[in-house]
C-alpha cells in the first residue's frame, strides 16, 4: 500500500485551483485562435480577440479568467493500493477554500439553496471519487460557471430513437442557450447509463481535450456532424453572429438499459477551465 498524505493532496489542489482559474486550457486557446482566423465580421473578430487577450491578461496578472470562478467540481481517481491520510472530501474542501481565498477568487456557493439566507462561501465543492487499479491518484478540478451550467439539459429518449433525434436534442440545447452562456461553446454530451450518469458523463466529456475527436470513429463522426449543425445556427462569439457558435462537441457514452436512452447536454462557455495532476 502507498500512503498519500493530506499535505500533498492539499498542495496539489491549491496548484490546480490556480492553474484552472487563471490559465486557459491550451486546447481551448488554440481552438479560439483557429476560430478567429475563420471569422470575417468585425463583431465576431473583436469578440474572439477580446477572449484571447483576456486569457493572456489573466495569466500574466494572476487574475481569474472569468469572475464566475464556478462551483468547484473535483474528480478524484484513487488507486486501490492507495491509503489516504484523512477524509478525502474534507481535505479537498479545506484546500479549495484556502486556495480560493488566497488567490482572491470569488465565493459563489450558497449553503442554503432554498431560502438563500447565507453569505456566499467558497465551498463545499462537488467531489466525485472513483476507485481504479494501481497505486496512484489523479485529481482533476473543473470550476464550472453557472451561466453555462444553467443551460444543461437531460432527456430520456426511447431506445428506438433515431440518430436525428439525438442530434436534434443536442442542437436544440444550444439553440435554447442562445447568446446567454458566453459562446463560442464547448458541448459536453453524455449518452447512456441512467439519468444521473448521463449528466455526469456530459460533464466529464468537457474534460477531454477538444483537439481531437472521440476514439470511437463512429462517435467522432457524429461529433463532427453535430458541430456543423450547431455552427449553422450562427449564434457566433458573444452571440453577435458568426461561424463559431461552438468549438467542439465531446460525446462520452456508457452502456444503458434495453428500454431507454438517457441523453444529457452540459454546455461550457468559452472559458472552459480544468486542470489535472497525477500523484
Amino acid at each position, binding site marked *: 500500500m502507498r500512503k498519500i498524505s493530506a499535505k500533498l493532496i492539499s498542495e496539489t489542489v491549491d496548484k490546480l485551483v490556480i492553474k484552472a482559474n487563471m490559465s486557459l486550457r491550451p486546447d481551448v486557446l488554440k481552438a479560439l485562435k483557429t476560430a478567429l482566423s475563420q471569422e470575417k465580421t468585425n463583431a465576431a473578430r473583436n469578440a474572439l480577440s*477580446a477572449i484571447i487577450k*483576456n486569457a493572456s*491578461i489573466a495569466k500574466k496578472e494572476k487574475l*481569474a*479568467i472569468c*469572475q*464566475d470562478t464556478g462551483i468547484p467540481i473535483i474528480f478524484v481517481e484513487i488507486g486501490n493500493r492507495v491509503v489516504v491520510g484523512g477524509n478525502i472530501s474534507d481535505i479537498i474542501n479545506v484546500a479549495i477554500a484556502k486556495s480560493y481565498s488566497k488567490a*482572491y477568487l*470569488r465565493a459563489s456557493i450558497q449553503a442554503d439553496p432554498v431560502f438563500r439566507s447565507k453569505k456566499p462561501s467558497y465551498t463545499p465543492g462537488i467531489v466525485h471519487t472513483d476507485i481504479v487499479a494501481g497505486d496512484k491518484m489523479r485529481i482533476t478540478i473543473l470550476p464550472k460557471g453557472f451561466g453555462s451550467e444553467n443551460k444543461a439539459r437531460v432527456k430520456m429518449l426511447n431506445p428506438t430513437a433515431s440518430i436525428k433525434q439525438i442530434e436534434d436534442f443536442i442542437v436544440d440545447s444550444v439553440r435554447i442557450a442562445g447568446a446567454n452562456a458566453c459562446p463560442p461553446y464547448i458541448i459536453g454530451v453524455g449518452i447512456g447509463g441512467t439519468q444521473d450518469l448521463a449528466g455526469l458523463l456530459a460533464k466529464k466529456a468537457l474534460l477531454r481535450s477538444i483537439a481531437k475527436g472521440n476514439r470511437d470513429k463512429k462517435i467522432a463522426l457524429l461529433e463532427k456532424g453535430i458541430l456543423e449543425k450547431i455552427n449553422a445556427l450562427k449564434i457566433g462569439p458573444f452571440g453577435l453572429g458568426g461561424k463559431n457558435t461552438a468549438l467542439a462537441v465531446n460525446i462520452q457514452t456508457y452502456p444503458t438499459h434495453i428500454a431507454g436512452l438517457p441523453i444529457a447536454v452540459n454546455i461550457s462557455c468559452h*472559458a472552459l477551465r480544468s486542470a489535472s495532476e497525477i500523484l
Partner: protein
Amino acid sequence: MKKLNGILAKNKIKDLRCGQEVLYTGMIYTARDQAHKRFSEMLRKGKKLPVDIKEQIIYYCGPNPAAKGKVIGSCGPTTSSRMDELTPVLLKNGLRAMIGKGERSKEVVAAIKQYKAVYFTTYAGCGALLSGRVKKKKTVCFKDLGAEAVFALEVEDFPLIVAIDACGGNIYDK
C-alpha cells in the same frame, strides 16, 4: 469608436443603435440577482432604494475581490435574463441603462422602448480584461451578499456594445 461620458440622460442615448460599439467613462452600479430581488421588494413596499437609480447604469456583475494593490478582481457580466422579471419596475423608476450578457424578455424590450433606456452587452467571460478598466470601487449596500453586494464602480473606456436600443432595435433578433 463612439465615446460616452458621465450621466447617460435620455438625449445622450437616444441616437445609439444596436450593434454600435461604445467606450464609456463614468459611474456604474453593480447589482445582480439578490440585489434586484431586494430592490423590487423595497419598491413594492413603497420604500426608498439605498441607491438613487435615476439616470444610472446597472451592471449585472459579481466581481472577484481585489488583490493587494489592485482596484478589483475579474469583473465580467453575468446572464441578464435572470434579471428580466425584476427589470421593468427599475426602468419605470428611472434606471437609464443596463449592462449584461445575452438576450432579454419581450417585456424588458418593451420597457426599454417605453422608458427610452438602453441595454448594453460587454465582453462576456472576459473579466480579467475588464478589470483593467475599473479605476475605483466602493461598496454601496447589501454587504451581506458578498460578491452580490451593490458596488459603485468608476470605469474608464469600458467597452460596451449596444444590444437593445431605445427604439427597440435588438442585436439578438435574427
